[in-house]
């Protein structure tokens, strides 16, 4: 129907609409949201069983363990970030939209992060206490995970966008993005370890913040281009 008199959507509204669409789809399948949290919980409970219940040993390893598990949980969910959109044809429609694909994709990525990384960071103190992480490290753990999972989700978005059209692209995705995740892991564990020692973790947190800000600006462009390549085959 020709209805040229209707108001057009602003860029911000287009972003918000995509965010809302993806968020609602995620919320409707609670299993998908609970999955990484459950994974986190299971791995963290397995560590004391495997390493023995010595609290000092567990506390010393806690920052590294928590961060590695967070990285794996993020890797696990980011593989499917654009998969359902690719299968149901939504990606094609996003590519045809009047607004830049990068902005629409960012809306999805942010919704995805809120449902996975953000939640994980919020509940992480609980898991940290299970491993006996000293309490002075808890705040820094949450902040570092908030910034870190944002970086991990953005990196995962590029990988997911590149591999979405490939059947069983999971292994390729891991090979692509694990090397890119390494700096985030190093900064994150360093920040928490520093805080546990009583030092000043702000250098590490600042580095992560800079990384997250830079990625937020640049990654959407890469995701948009990668999605177009994936659609073009």
């Amino acid at each position, binding site marked *: 129907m020709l209805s040229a008199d209707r108001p057009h959507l602003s860029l911000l509204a287009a972003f918000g*609409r995509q965010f809302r669409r993806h968020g609602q789809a995620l919320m409707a399948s609670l299993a998908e949201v609970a999955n990484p949290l459950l994974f986190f919980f299971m791995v963290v409970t397995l560590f004391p069983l495997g390493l023995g219940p010595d609290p000092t040993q567990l506390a010393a390893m806690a920052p590294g363990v928590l961060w590695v598990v967070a990285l794996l949980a993020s890797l696990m969910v980011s593989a499917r970030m654009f998969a359902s959109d690719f299968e149901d044809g939504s990606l094609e*429609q996003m590519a045809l939209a009047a607004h830049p694909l990068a902005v629409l994709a960012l809306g999805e990525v942010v919704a995805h992060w809120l449902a996975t990384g953000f939640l994980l960071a919020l509940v992480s103190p609980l898991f940290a206490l299970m491993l006996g992480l000293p309490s002075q490290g808890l705040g820094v753990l949450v902040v570092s995970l908030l910034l870190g999972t944002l970086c991990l989700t953005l990196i995962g978005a590029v990988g997911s966008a590149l591999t979405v059209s490939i059947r069983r692209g999971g292994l390729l995705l891991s090979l692509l993005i694990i090397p890119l995740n390494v700096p985030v892991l190093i900064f994150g564990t360093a920040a928490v370890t520093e805080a546990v020692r009583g030092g000043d973790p702000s250098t590490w947190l600042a580095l992560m913040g800079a990384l997250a800000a830079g990625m937020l600006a640049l990654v959407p462009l890469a995701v948009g281009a990668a999605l177009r390549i994936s659609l*073009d085959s």
Partner: protein
Amino acid sequence: MALLAAAEVAIERGERRLLHGVNLSVDSGQVWQVLGANGVGKSSLLRALAGLARLGVEGSISRFEPLLYLAHAPAIKGALSPFENLRCHPACDIISTRAQIELALQAVQLRGFEDQPVGSLSAGQQRRVALARLLLSDARLWLLDEPFTALDRSGCEWLEECVRRHVGAGGAVIFTSHQPSRFGELQQDLDLAHYAVS
């Protein structure tokens, strides 16, 4: 007024060349039916015309107006209600009010299903949700890939009526279908058998 022009378009999929030498000029007020056997490249041609496929497409395709492309995959989320699916459709860039969306859903006979998850509806009803978008877009050119699939008789009649009205208002439609001519005099055929690479 020309809405789309394609000159000497050739399409390859994988290593295989499907079509060559396709020339097409679509003006407002025209209905084009793309014909051809399974696998001849109807959907590939439509994707190329929409601008989605560039790899493996040769020749020049000019699009002069925003278009609406409806693919086999309906781009609707099973977890969302028909209402939410239409309100948050990724390709629609005009704002529709609640009343306008409800009117569109009523037109496709989905009144009463507004708030059910689309996943719980039948294939034909899901198709109707996707087609309701036609009423909420201001695109002049519609590219419809097998729009009559899964529709019942009344659905097909509604869609025919909808296409006629759109064309009457200065729009144009290109659609693929295996059904015989639906629009009589109004319609022009593009038989891909002539352009197939044997």
